Each structure stands twice: as structure tokens, then as C-alpha cells.
């Protein structure tokens, strides 16, 4: 588990619409800041803003945990939701949920595939069906990633949720039979088909309304 990233944040100016709203958020983004909110533990929702550099640090360390310095007070939070722009280049909003270290929480953890895949050499392709798994654990024990050893996988073999080696205190909240990774046979190189050359070979069927049948009755 990675340590919590310490981030200095500022609360938003309450004079302007309590510091909320799309116009305020747009102005913050123009200043190089990212709007965010802190909620949870049946306390008030606090709208905040943090620098883009702090967000990049959060991404770089790939941690779920953060300690937010609000000037006078400190909040231990979990990144609950991330909003990206339409191109996925910049984060435009963050949701932080208040947590305590021993609190049991549910979150998504990515799978970290390790090892050289012998099945891929023998004419197979490693297909990752699921990239993240939902886990339930205490907030202080959230793993950065769940390591999955794929070095024994042969063609046609797979790894399911039941095969995962989990850190202590971590439980996966998914069907044990859920397939995570498997080796599938390589597809033959496709040739352009005759239909792709130009003319529409057939037309789609038109769904006719059922009303006519009812009228006949």
C-alpha cells in the first residue's frame, strides 16, 4: 500500500455562489486549478480547489489515498471519482471521500500482470478481460495493484478471480468464476472481402409496426 500523498488545497471563495457552480469551476480551470469536493462521514460537503501539479502528483504515484491540508485542518480522503475532459487529457474535477484508517471501504484496484507468457509464444494472444477488480478492505490496506502471475499460462488457459493471491485483509467483491485473463488463439490475417469493395450487398430489414396486426384482429 502506498503512503498518502500530502496535498495543499484551498477552499473556494464563499462570496461567489458559495464557491460552487460551473462558472466558478471554469474560472478555476483557467487559473490552472482543478475544482474538487470533499464529502462523507455525514459532514458538510466542502468545495475546494487544488493545483494541477498536485493532481499530476496524485496520478504519478497512482495512490488512492491523500491527506488534504485545508489550511487550518487536515482531512484524510480517498479519491472516489475522477472526471476527465472529452479527450482524456486533463482532469476537470475530483471527488474526495472522507475515510478513517480502519474503515472498511469498497474500491477498484487494477491488476498488475507479471511474467513472460509461454502461451503467447505458442501462437496465442494474452487477452485481458478485466483490468480492475472491486475490492473490500480497510482504508489503510488498499493495495496499489493486485499482482497476477501469468508466467504459467498456456494456450486456452485463463486466470479467474478465485485464482488471485490477495494481500492480507483484502477481499474481492466479484464472482469467483469471473475470468480475468486468458490466452486465446491468434486470429488469421483477414483479407478484404468482396462486400467491402463497394456495393451494398443487402439492405437491413425494416422493423414494421405491430399496430397493423392488432387492427386486423
Amino acid at each position: 500500500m502506498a503512503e498518502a500523498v500530502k496535498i495543499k488545497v484551498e477552499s473556494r471563495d464563499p462570496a461567489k455562489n458559495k464557491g460552487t457552480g460551473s462558472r466558478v469551476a471554469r474560472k478555476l480551470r483557467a487559473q490552472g486549478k482543478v475544482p474538487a469536493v470533499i464529502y462523507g462521514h455525514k459532514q458538510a460537503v466542502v468545495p475546494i480547489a487544488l493545483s494541477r501539479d498536485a493532481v499530476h502528483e496524485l496520478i504519478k504515484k497512482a495512490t488512492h489515498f491523500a491527506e488534504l491540508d485545508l489550511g487550518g485542518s487536515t482531512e484524510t480522503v480517498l479519491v472516489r471519482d475522477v472526471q476527465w475532459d472529452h479527450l482524456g487529457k486533463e482532469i476537470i474535477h475530483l471527488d474526495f471521500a472522507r475515510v478513517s484508517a480502519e474503515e472498511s471501504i469498497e474500491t477498484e484496484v487494477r491488476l498488475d500482470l507479471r511474467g513472460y507468457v509461454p502461451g503467447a509464444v505458442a501462437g496465442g494472444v494474452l487477452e485481458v478481460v478485466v483490468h480492475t477488480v472491486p475490492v473490500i478492505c480497510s482504508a489503510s490496506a488498499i493495495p496499489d495493484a493486485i499482482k497476477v502471475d501469468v508466467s504459467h499460462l498456456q494456450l486456452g488457459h485463463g486466470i479467474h478471480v478465485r485464482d488471485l493471491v490477495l494481500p492480507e485483509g483484502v477481499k474481492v467483491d466479484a464472482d469467483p468464476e469471473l475470468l480475468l485473463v486468458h490466452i486465446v488463439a491468434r486470429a488469421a490475417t483477414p483479407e478484404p472481402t468482396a462486400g467491402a469493395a463497394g456495393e451494398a450487398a443487402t439492405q437491413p430489414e425494416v422493423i414494421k409496426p405491430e399496430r397493423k396486426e392488432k387492427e386486423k384482429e
Partner: protein
Amino acid sequence: MAMMPKRVKYRKSQKGRVKGNATRGNYVAFGEFGLQALEPGRISAQTIEAGRVVASQTVKGGGKLYIRIFPHKSVTSIPAETRMGKGKGEIEYWAAVVKPGTVLFEIAGVSEEAARAALARVAHKLPVHCRFVTRRPTI
């Protein structure tokens, strides 16, 4: 064979305009790398098929290719030297409407260099500007 819907409620559709940005299908969901549209446009079923073929040929059967768009929209045209009127033309082709941010193709099971090479060749065939994208970091 080029993709087209199996069943439709109406065969012909109005032209429409492509407005706004993609709010869905704008991240790499299935594979590890993807090709993202940077401008709005229409991509015909033939072009999608050409992209699929060239990507598969480049990675030589290795990896897995995902096509994230489908040509739902019919595009009609009237023949040359035809007088005006006499109703809407016949269906010429089927096209997918894409907005800036839409992930068009995804690839998995290959190295980043191989994926870049394959998707660059796909991008050359497309009528919209594209960029190579990877999965969003999970935090």
C-alpha cells in the same frame, strides 16, 4: 463484408449535424491502446473495414483489435444527371457519426510500438484527425 445494421426502424435518415464532444465512448475501455478522433465527422463502413484489415495485417494476427464504432446512419445520394425532385435518393453507404474524443479502434496484446505502427496506418485511412491514446490511469 462492410458493417451495417441488421434491422432498422427507418431505412433513410436525415443528414443532421455533428455537434459537441463525445461524452461516451471517449476512453480506452477494452484494449491497452486506442485511436481517438479529434474532430467531428462520418466514417463509412468501408473505411472502418479498411482500418480493420490494415491494423490486423500490421500486427500479423497478434493482438486483439476492438472496433468501437458502428455505422448506424444511412447516407443516400441521387444519381448524376437526375432532375430535382422525385423523392429522396437511394442508400449509398452506411456511416458512423463520430464526435471529438470518440475512441474508434482499440488494440491489446501487442507492444506499444506495434500498436502505434498499426494505428498510424489506420489513421491514414480515416477522414478525421486522430491521436494515439493509452488507458487512463486509475487513481
